[in-house]
């Protein structure tokens, strides 16, 4: 499954507003892409690690599972975790006019829909 996710991630096309994104696997390996110089791959992968740490705490608090949106002054960081523990994170600008939300939704939908039978 890990190879399939990586393959999908490598081939995925960016949408308007995406600054950086990454995938972190349950074995703690990660891959990432950035479209802005200030977002380093190491930084994105570190952020994904932080986001993943949050899920068990949310679960312990019995908060309903869903997409996380970390709202910072300049940036939003969106995260989703699949049932198998793989996590996708996407950085976008805070200004909604600069973001293609349909593209963002499509990106997460494809990520969640990936299965062994998916052909890429």
């Amino acid at each position, binding site marked *: 499954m890990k190879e399939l996710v990586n393959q999908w991630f490598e081939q995925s096309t960016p949408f308007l507003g995406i600054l950086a994104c990454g995938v972190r696997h349950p074995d703690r390996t990660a891959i990432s892409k950035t479209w802005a110089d200030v977002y380093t791959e190491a930084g994105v992968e570190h952020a994904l690690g932080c986001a993943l740490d949050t899920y068990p705490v949310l679960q312990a608090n019995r908060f309903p599972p869903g997409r996380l949106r970390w*709202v910072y002054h300049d940036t939003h960081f969106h995260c989703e975790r699949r049932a198998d523990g793989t996590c996708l994170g996407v950085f976008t600008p805070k200004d909604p006019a600069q973001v293609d939300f349909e593209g963002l939704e499509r990106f997460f939908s494809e990520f969640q829909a990936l299965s062994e039978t998916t052909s890429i």
Partner: protein
Amino acid sequence: MPHKRKKILFVDDEASLLDLIRQLMTHFSGGAWEVLTALDVSKALSLLQEHRVDLLVIDIHMPLVDGLQFLSLLQRKYPNVLKVMLTGDANDSHRAACLAGGAELFLEKPRDEGGWRTVYATLHELTRFQPEEGFRGVLRRVSLQDVLQMECLARNSSILKIHAANIHGLVYVKEGQIIHAQCGERTGEEAFNYLLGLAGGEFDVTTFADPPSRSITGSWEFLLMEAARKRDETGPVTPGQSDSGFQTPATTLSERPTPSVVPVIEAGQTTAQPVRPQSQLSLPTGTKPQVAEFLVCSLQGEVLHEWQCSNPNGRVSFLEFLAQKARQLTQGMPLGDFDRLEVNGPDGRVVAQIQSDRALLVRTRPAPLEEAAAPGPNPVSP
């Protein structure tokens, strides 16, 4: 109109001195002061919870928790209450520590009735210039959200009059609850969100009067969070002028920095709207979010308000964890200051916000429209 009696609380570990003070101050004030006394900090805190105290006069030397420690606690918990330190052992180091700790005055305990009369006159002057209602002091770089939050936390009753170009709006706060908003044809939450979304203008906090109707019943925390979220999603509303901040006649007040691209949203105007997030961010059809719980705590972990939290300490721990994780997440990246985490799912939504002085958690769940419309309990009633 009769003046409200001032409530002055004296804290000293000498019971006989407190008796003397009560008699003298009541006499000097001609009954205009309600003199409260406490022999220790715990009694003083209890009285502060029961009464809206105008002025606290604290002895420095007390057993267990001394006056300076108490002053520090008061600054965190009751920053707006006037505080005066009174001591029989006045020295420069105490004076400096007390004034730095937030005391308005540092006075020496008098030895005769004439001295007490002088103390009374000084305290009277201090209280005389404080407005009985509304704000005191000068606020800088404060947003409408901040003002509303302060009004609600203080359980004040007031009307916020908001003006921006040709837009005029009113937000009614009654005993710390936002009960009504109107702006032109808009009323209720629609008007509230619209006003909170304005990019700039002026506002005044004025004396409360009953609104024509009550159009808002939700908790103020949730309203402010939702307004902030909507503003983030749609961008601020620019009412056709270049002002980039709210102003009062006395002070320039700045709103949050305006994003570089500002969608203009005016009634009847066709403007390109940003695409709203869909799917997981949307609630199921035929439902409306209903507050399931909320909690406000200080950054020291003290629960300030909570409603329907089955485990407040657990929520505080979660907010502490979040504050730490949000800091770690930014390492090496230009994300800006952390504002909040949103967890959006079909089964509900959680918003956890970390502010400079407090943290807030609101959990909502989708409820059928008819259930959501039914009047619920007042979440912040004692």
